[in-house]
């Protein structure tokens, strides 16, 4: 019996470790610049994820700002919170919550890819805007950290086995 419980606990260790690594990466992802903009006639500037969202808002593009805010901020946080909930439920035994937790897992799995929005945005700008002195966009360390958050959360979701949520119900009498 002890071995079974150990196996269950260790099954959640890998997703927990990946999710924890993603949490650590969140701080540089949100505080470091994701790109450096140079446009002739304007002072060169660094952009973070939040300043990019604010810029969209100031341009009057509220819907786009909301989309980027959701994809780049809410989705990673919700994914990590959800993964934390799932892992804790497996470790503590979430009897009676299996169906709800399975829905949480399905949601995390579904929304995961949309966090890549900002990575694709920065990659596109860096590849397309290359006018040397006239205009250029260069990636900065923040996008590397943010990409790391996205990859780690997606790997954590994949590493988590949702059947662990149902072990109480399937345990033989």
């Amino acid at each position, binding site marked *: 019996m002890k071995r079974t419980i150990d196996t269950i606990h260790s099954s959640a260790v890998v997703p927990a470790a990946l999710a924890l690594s993603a949490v650590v990466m969140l701080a540089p992802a949100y505080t470091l610049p994701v790109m450096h903009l140079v446009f002739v006639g304007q002072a060169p500037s660094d952009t973070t994820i939040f300043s990019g969202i604010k810029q969209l808002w100031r341009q009057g593009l509220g819907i786009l700002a909301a989309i980027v805010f959701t994809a780049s901020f809410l989705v990673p946080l919700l994914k990590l919170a959800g993964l934390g909930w799932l892992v804790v439920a497996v470790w503590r035994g979430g009897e009676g919550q299996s*169906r709800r937790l399975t829905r949480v897992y399905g949601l995390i799995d579904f929304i995961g890819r949309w966090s890549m929005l900002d990575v694709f*945005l920065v990659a596109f700008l860096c590849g397309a*805007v*290359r006018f040397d002195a006239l205009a250029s966009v260069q*990636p900065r360390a923040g996008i590397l950290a943010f990409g790391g958050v996205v990859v780690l959360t997606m790997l954590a979701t994949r590493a988590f086995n949702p059947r662990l*949520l149902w072990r109480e119900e399937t345990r033989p009498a």
Partner: protein
Amino acid sequence: MPSDDQLICPLCGQVHRHQPLAPGQRACCIRCEATLEERARLGPDAVLAFALAGVMLAIPAALLPFVTLVKVSAVRTSFLTDSFMGLWSHDMNALGFWVLCCGVLAPFALLLVLVAAVWAERRDTTGRFHQLRQLARFIEYWAMPEVQILGVMVAFFKLGDVVDVSIGPGLWCYAATSLFTLLAWRQFNLQPRTGWSVASAPVET
């Protein structure tokens, strides 16, 4: 090991028994309510048609100009793979390769795997079909053409005031490829797990 007439819920592990499904009908797990199977309204021919259309459009998507930017009198035309090059040339090789994988390689590979899976099913090579199905499921998780398109659209609005942007034929082809990839995958994913000739629905054992 499940037998051919059994279906195991991928989320909770509940074992179900097959029953025929009508086109458009969905079968859900009796325990966790996850969708187990859904019979497509269109058959495997639709998967093949969508996937082949996607493959044909993938070539111009990769080769034709993606966008053209104009700043003062300077004109720059970029291509689909320039996103990768933009990161790679700034020593972000891993991230650049990752963007290439999710935005270009995985979607295009998914289309080829879907064509191969339909072909394997037609030739009645069940083992190969199941291998390709597993491979398609793996690739699909990392294929994100629709997210890339949304990212490019947001970038257009960001550039609005400072650079003139015009969409090239490569982007239109890429958008169409993405649409066909989604349609092909959706139809493929709706086919019964045991093969397309055996329509079935689960009931409690």
